[in-house]
């Protein structure tokens, strides 16, 4: 299997980015929900510290992923799609990339506004993006929640569409993003 993308399928690098980010988003939702249920304490701090570190990891991976995307060709949308379906598919993908930036960035920013700086797994501390401000913290935290759940919603739609292609249209849209398959 090729590292780079072909006109028929996604290469190993693009697939790795895709599936690692899927796993990390699931991790993020799990960590956030677990932390939400806890009172202030070490356990909560620990979960949220991990949530922040994983979020920064996602942000870094998305930058690399987009760079890789621009350096590569990529398999086109199936010709069987109607124009409005193609437009919808493009919009969904752009939305996913935009949200993959905005969700970590609002998280990082609201941490700064709260006055709880972000550390990446304890290895280094990230700079504060905004000065400490309670109203800004409240607004950014709301934005982070809305954007995060929007990301989950769009991702579910995206996955449902891939499954529809696979089982309904019986094309190779899903398979070309899956390892160990042939297209």
């Amino acid at each position, binding site marked *: 299997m090729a590292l780079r993308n072909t006109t028929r399928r996604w290469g190993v690098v693009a697939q790795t980015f895709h599936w690692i980010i899927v796993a990390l988003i699931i991790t993020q939702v799990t960590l956030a929900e677990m932390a939400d249920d806890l009172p*202030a*304490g*070490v*356990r909560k*701090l*620990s979960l*949220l*510290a991990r949530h*922040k570190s994983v979020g920064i990891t996602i942000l870094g991976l998305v930058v690399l992923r987009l760079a890789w995307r621009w350096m590569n060709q990529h398999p086109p949308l199936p010709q069987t799609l109607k124009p409005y379906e193609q437009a919808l598919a493009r919009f969904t993908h752009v939305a996913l990339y935009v949200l993959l930036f905005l969700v970590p960035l609002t998280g990082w920013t609201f941490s700064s506004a*709260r*006055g*709880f*700086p*972000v*550390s*990446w*797994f*304890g*290895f280094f*501390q990230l700079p504060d993006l905004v000065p*400490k401000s309670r109203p800004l913290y409240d607004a950014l935290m709301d934005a982070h929640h809305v954007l995060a759940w929007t990301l989950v919603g769009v991702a579910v739609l995206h996955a449902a569409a891939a499954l529809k292609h696979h089982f309904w249209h019986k094309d190779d849209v899903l398979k070309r993003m899956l390892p160990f398959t042939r297209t």
Partner: protein
Amino acid sequence: MRKPTFSLALAAALLAGGVLASAPAAAASHYTLDAAKSTLEFTFLQAGAKDTGRFPRFTVTLDCTGADPAGGRLEVTVDVAALDTGDQERDETLRSDDLFAVAKFPQAHFLATRIVKTAGGYEAEGALTIRGVTRETRVPFTFREATEGGAAVGYMAGKTVVRRLDFGVGQGDWKATDQAGNEVTVAFTLRLTSAAH
């Protein structure tokens, strides 16, 4: 070797005694804190990130000879419950029983009865009590004397590292140091005013 050293020390003592006797005796100074122009801060590691809080309410007295802290006595009392890290939820957590337990131990206290001159300034050695636990602690500091509006003032600054677990600040889950670091840097910049007497 013992005898010459002893003689030398004796000669030095006699000489010093003679010099002191001939110089005018320096007055005893009693410095107190100018709270409005002083800060007492603590820097800690939370979840791998550095952050700073402050103790807005504390008192300091320094008793010494003239404007020389060496040989003097330094006493600091801190209202721990007034701590401020800029985050209400965190402040409440810090005041709780597992951390500072301010309901039972509202004050921290430092009493230095040995102050010596060092290469970089001074060092105060004494008993630091936090959360009811007392430990011998050394605090290096600098001291600069000035005259402002005809009155003698002293500027004192320094910092020291306190290991919170040495004082039991961190019970239960808080004994772990991965989310809340054990080492806390306490830094102070003080303006002291003197009432010479």
